[in-house]
């Protein structure tokens, strides 16, 4: 029972990580709290769902959810954040919230206010490992999350692009004087982070077999709590915090029978962490004051 819940907690934590790491990456570069990231996640879920309905190929669904995410991400960065970059980050934050609501409402207008599910041929069957039961959908979610996080690690730690990204997030002007095209680097980073958010949308949609226009609401604020705990711009802090939140939620509800709503737990965790390690929130206000 306990092991089963740990496995479930890590599964959901891995998906949180896909969203939160992209959010942390954006904050690290532009010091913007990119609430609309959760809108990208919703678009990715719909793109993946409809691709699956049309083609019955989950591989194509993955590709289309990531592509849709990347395109939306680049559009947001080019036409919303860049024009606002010289103003206070509060203005970008408000724009981002407005954008998030617009994206969700557009999805509602286009696809209707209903919960949509995947065709029945997606992910049947389950696997037994001793007492632990893992559904096929869960296995796919775990596999893809691990692969995506390994990709993030490789890209940020081992490539020339990752090094340039670090340079740009530490000092844009100096990076420019070293012939680094900072705008290009930022666009690529946005595309990359947004593709992962799109993928996360598809994975959650497939895991819970439901896609709906307001599915981004909870991830929007939960991912925020996660990156505050992880130290705002720190993507590996966000990764650790995501797994922690996934585990805490699942174990509190499934094992400890905590009588609180599941979605409040991330925030209780955030408050407890900040009481003992306030660096996260300090980073937040430093960013807002700039």
């Amino acid at each position, binding site marked *: 029972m306990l092991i089963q819940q740990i496995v479930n907690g890590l599964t959901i934590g891995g998906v949180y990580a896909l969203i939160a790491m992209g959010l942390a990456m954006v904050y690290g570069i532009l010091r913007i709290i990119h609430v609309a990231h959760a809108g990208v996640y919703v678009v990715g879920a719909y793109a993946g769902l409809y691709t699956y309905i049309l083609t019955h190929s989950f591989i194509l669904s993955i590709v289309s959810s990531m592509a849709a995410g990347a395109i939306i991400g680049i559009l947001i960065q080019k036409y919303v954040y860049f024009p606002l970059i010289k103003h206070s980050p509060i203005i970008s934050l408000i724009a981002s919230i407005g954008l998030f609501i617009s994206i969700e409402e557009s999805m509602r207008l286009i696809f209707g206010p209903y919960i949509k599910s995947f065709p029945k041929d997606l992910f049947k069957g389950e696997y037994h490992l001793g007492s632990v039961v893992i559904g096929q959908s869960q296995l796919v979610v775990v596999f893809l999350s691990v692969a995506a996080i390994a990709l993030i690690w490789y890209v940020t730690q081992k490539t*020339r692009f990752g090094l340039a990204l*670090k340079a740009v997030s530490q000092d844009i002007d100096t990076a420019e*004087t070293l012939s680094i095209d900072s705008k290009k680097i930022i666009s690529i980073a946005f595309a990359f982070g947004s593709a992962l958010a799109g993928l996360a949308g598809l994975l959650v949609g497939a895991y819970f077999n439901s896609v709906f226009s307001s599915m981004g609401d909870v991830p929007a604020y939960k991912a925020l709590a996660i990156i505050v705990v992880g130290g705002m711009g720190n993507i590996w802090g966000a990764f650790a915090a995501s797994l922690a939140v996934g585990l805490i939620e699942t174990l509190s509800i499934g094992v400890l029978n905590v009588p609180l709503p599941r979605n409040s737990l991330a925030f209780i965790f955030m408050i407890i962490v900040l009481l003992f390690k306030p660096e996260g929130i300090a980073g937040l206000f430093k960013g807002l004051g700039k």
Partner: protein
Amino acid sequence: MLKVKNLFVSYNEIKAINGVSIEIAKGECVAVVGANGAGKSTLLKSIIGIKDIKSGLILFEEKDIVRLPAHKRASLGISFVPEGAKVFPKISVLGNLILGAYKEKDKTVIKKRMEDIFSLFPRLKERVNQTAGTLSGGERQMLSMARALMGSPKLLMIDEISLGLMPKLVDTVFEVVENLKKRGITILLSEQNAHKAAEISDKIYILELGKIIKETDKNGILNDPKIRKAYLGM
């Protein structure tokens, strides 16, 4: 190599550079000397392109670069050592150096340049895996110069190299600059330390409140009583 004509730069309403023209020939070492706030840093930042200009002409190898973004100017062969070193504190010394050679994709070339740099700055070799934030002030200045040199520049611009360094280190960094000049790199320095700058420069511009008030050379600066009083304190 570099011509700046009638340059105007302002911060909001305040004029920082007020009609400056300077010229640097290939292989020369030129210093812009002036007090704090005279506009030296602004001049260098406008040449590399991280400060927008109001009007004027900047020609690099006869090509107008005013409309190019900073990274394009850098890839034409202009390197910049900013005031206060500005190394990337969370990146290793090695990473900082690799970033200096960002436009170069050939790994053997990068490796060769790095060996060359280590012979110039042996101290950096010892610290290659440390993050740059853990270096001392002098080491950061060395790293910043080394990083600029990794781009194999035609023109090296150094902003306030001696600022905040202890006198012994000031001598060391000026020795390095002289060394680079001997290698044939064209150099543009901005300095408050007029005496030191005069020793290694072929030409000196005196900048006061955003205007060039005098163009001179080593002898000129040492023999002009007004300049001696204002900039050398003797």
